């Protein structure tokens, strides 16, 4: 016999085939089937409506994974979508069975002891094997996807390499060859051409961080001692307007300003991108105010860099600072700062007012930030390190290259 039942010692009645209690007898009228059916339908409708309602709100979010703009994120969403329908189906089936059981088999007054069934071997085998097959199919499909997503397509011959280094709490982007052999180092804003696979080498300078641009690619951790590789690409058919901005954020808790460790990926058409690479580099300070600002900035070069036409003086300044014995701390490269959209690792828009706020007291704007600490350390003779209003205006004029 294909069924299995331990006959309880106290059972006087012959053990009944459990299937009779598991399957409704046809045509048998029980007191509440109609009601149960209706309430179940309503429950399902409600769940579907909730899903829809929430899903509508989803794709509009800045970091929504439901709105992929590249092959990697699309594949990841495709996997999730299939799984979502499997989950919804299993959910309805199992919760439906649960709901049916508790409504149909609730105790009625004067009810006798129900049949004391102990199990059913065929059923056990079925509900072990069927999920195993289902889940193995998903598993094998997943394994294929893992290997698919490992590398950019072999056909791609124009891969752009970028090394990303995480620091507490900002991202450094280094292009060994941004185009035409030009080496570019920038911060918190990754600029890439559309339709070009970008291979990222992920490093960390301090603790573990994680690189994540939901619309372009799922995250990968940035770990000191390790160099992780991932790739992403922005597809032209998903972009309406150039330059297109995609939002990213550190996804591994990394200390006090973890929430404020954001970055952006800005996608250009190829010729725009080429022009950016071509023109990259700080133009000489022209106005008198900017010249004065540059002199003030001479104190900042211990940590910050500006590459460009006249960075020689700044380098000399750094050498001087180094000789007085301060430690060089990694800090964002500020070349072409004026062309960036944000300040403080995606914290706020870059404009004169915000830059002034930042320079006045960076600690107020971003907790844990080491700018004033480092400055105090560097000029440890106790002199006042805060900038005067004039100095502020000058340095802003220089950094934003105001005429």
């Amino acid at each position, binding site marked *: 016999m294909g069924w299995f039942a331990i006959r*309880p010692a106290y059972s006087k009645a012959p053990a009944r085939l459990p299937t009779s209690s598991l399957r409704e007898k046809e045509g048998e009228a029980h007191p509440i089937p109609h009601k149960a059916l209706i309430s179940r339908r309503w429950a399902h409708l409600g769940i579907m409506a909730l899903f829809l309602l929430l899903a509508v709100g989803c794709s509009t979010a800045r*970091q929504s994974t439901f709105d992929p703009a590249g092959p990697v994120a699309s594949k990841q969403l495709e996997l999730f979508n299939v799984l979502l329908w499997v989950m919804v189906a299993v959910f309805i089936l199992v919760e439906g069975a649960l709901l049916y059981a508790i409504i149909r*088999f609730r105790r009625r007054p004067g009810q006798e002891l129900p049949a004391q*069934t102990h199990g059913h071997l065929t059923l056990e085998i079925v509900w*072990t094997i069927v999920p195993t097959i289902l889940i193995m199919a998903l598993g094998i499909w997943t394994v294929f996807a*893992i290997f698919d997503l490992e590398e950019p397509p072999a056909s791609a011959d124009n891969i752009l390499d970028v090394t990303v280094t995480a620091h507490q709490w900002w991202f450094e982007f280094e292009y060994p060859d941004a185009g035409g052999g030009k080496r570019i180092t920038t911060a918190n804003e990754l600029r890439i051409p559309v339709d070009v696979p970008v291979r990222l080498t992920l490093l960390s300078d*301090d603790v573990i961080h994680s690189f994540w641009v939901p619309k372009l690619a799922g995250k990968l951790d940035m770990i000191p001692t390790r160099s992780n590789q991932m790739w992403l690409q922005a597809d032209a058919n998903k972009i309406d307007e150039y330059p297109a901005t995609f939002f990213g954020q550190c996804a591994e808790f990394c200390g*006090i300003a973890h929430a404020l460790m954001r970055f952006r990926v800005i996608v250009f058409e190829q010729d725009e991108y080429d022009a950016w690479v071509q023109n990259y580099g700080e133009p000489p300070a022209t106005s008198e105010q900017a010249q004065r600002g540059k002199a003030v900035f001479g104190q900042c070069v211990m940590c910050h860099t500006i590459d460009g036409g006249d960075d020689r003086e700044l380098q000399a300044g750094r050498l001087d600072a180094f000789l007085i014995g301060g430690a060089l701390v990694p800090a964002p490269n500020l070349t072409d700062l004026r062309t960036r959209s944000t300040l403080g690792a995606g914290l706020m828009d870059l404009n004169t007012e915000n830059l002034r706020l930042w320079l006045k007291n960076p600690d107020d704007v971003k907790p844990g930030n080491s700018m004033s600490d480092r400055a105090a350390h560097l000029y440890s003779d106790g002199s006042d390190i805060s900038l005067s209003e004039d100095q502020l205006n000058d340095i802003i004029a220089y950094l934003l290259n105001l005429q």
Partner: protein
Amino acid sequence: MAAITDVLARPTGYSGIWSWLTTVDHKRIGLLYGFSAFAFLLIGGIEAGVMRMQLSQADNSLVDPATFNQMFTMHGTTMIFMAIMPLSAAFFNLIVPLAIGARDVAFPRLNAFSYWAFLFGALLMHSSFLVNQVPDAGWFSYANLTEKPFSGNDAMDFWALGLQVLGISSLAAGFNFIVTIINMRAPGMHLMRMPVFIWMTLITSILLVLAFPVITVGLIELTMDRNFGTHFFIPASGGDPILWQHLFWVFGHPEVYILILPAMGIVSEVFPTFSRKPLFGYPFIVFSGIVIGMMGWAVWSHHMFTVGLGSIATSVFVITTMLIGVPTGVKIFNWIATMWGGSITFSTSMLFAIGFVALFIVGGLSGVSHAVAPSDRQQQDTYYIVAHLHYVLFGGSLMGLFAGVYYWFPKFTGKLISEKLGKWHFWLFFIGMNVTFFPMHFVGLNGMPRRIYTYSSDYGWEWLNMLSSAGYFIIFLGVIIFMVAFVRAMRNGRPSGHDPWDAPGLEWSISSPPPEYNFAEIPQVEGLDHYWIMKRRAAAEGNPITRPEPHVDPRTIHMPSPSYWPLIVAFGTIWLAGGLLTHYALSFMGGIIVIIGIVGWGNEPPTARDPQH
């Protein structure tokens, strides 16, 4: 020798504060566990409230980032190690000896030590609030953020040492229950006649003694790095921060099953009772539990799919992780089949058990979606994970544990909790839990990482967060109603009789509350659901059982006497750990107290001079 035994005489009080401090009675220790764990559950709940309030609006500044980081770290650590685990331990203590027909656990004094070590470890970690050096690196505290250069104060030492002591407590409890269950079963209770709750306790205990040594190693290494100049996890000196992740999750994944298996055991007792029908597929529920316990060791790297372990390693863990869903599914199908064809009474306990299954299904399904590694790259460290883990821990473990509270409350008080208030509690929990955590699936897939103290309104996360925060209050109200119901029932609940639910377990055959010796006569077990067999046979013979086993003169039964030593050894342990935070001399003192305690413990006379014993 007489002089020594006089000095080491065992305490004799059976009432008052000293009787609780020196008790070795498993029922009293169970109650101590239960009440302490509930207190920590409240603390963890308040910490959750602070986070929910901070996140209810974009750009909120209710708390500063430092406080927020402390809140999520302590919330996670408290709920897992000081609320859910000790609540499970409370049930192990209260139920195991009663349900296997024993008079106490195998090592009553070790049992008392487990409790005191738990309490002191938890207090040590919480004392970090007094010196404002609260752990702040998350409940899994990834190295190397926890190392000196990035975590300069003593916060992580509080965390590591507190957890270490909690681990000692868990290890002692684990060994105790393994030995108790293997050796102390009443005659006739074969392994395959044990209630499922006992099976799950056994599996959990085995997981405890195998998993905790792994985290112990990790914590020792972390403590040494921070205090003695080693560099296990410091990259600059050639250490590897990923080693911590492996150690943590090799422990951490079995830990997940340590948290859920006891609740699964509890609902496996509740469903048959309130369906008036034996558990469906008992051997399958038991073996799926064993399979879960074994496979739990082979899935840890699914917590690390974003570490970059390589495609081969990732693929292996994808497959094992997916497979572990099967035994879990088998359990759910069997529970539903238990109710199928039954005669279901919707007591509060049953509602919580049904709620457990309903919510655990959701958590299980989202769990399968994490197993799909490429799509997990979008889910890892987001609120989607937070949603998942609360569906299994709150919807699963906690709902299951509350099913147990309502189920066994009459056994230990002889009183009934108001069904009306209980049902309010259930519905507030069930609805509040869904309102709080269901939106987190969406806010997570919308790109909100976990552990961020603020977000800007441009990200489109605000209203979903507001909804989650509103749900918090519904849960909060549920907790208050539970406390009211509990206190009212303690004070003047209706008498329950010894067997209010017509339950199958051995524990229901004795009076409520049970006498100190549990069973006047050790029962001869005739089968699974022993008490049902007894009652139905008696009813068939025409003289139904209406009364519990009668009490006897306690002097005729030899019981273990109370002891000071477990408390003293636990006290020494905490000095030993606390000294590392303050002054090594204190550690030294603590060590001496521990040694004296162990010597005293070993030389303690077996019985009190109390002529009664």
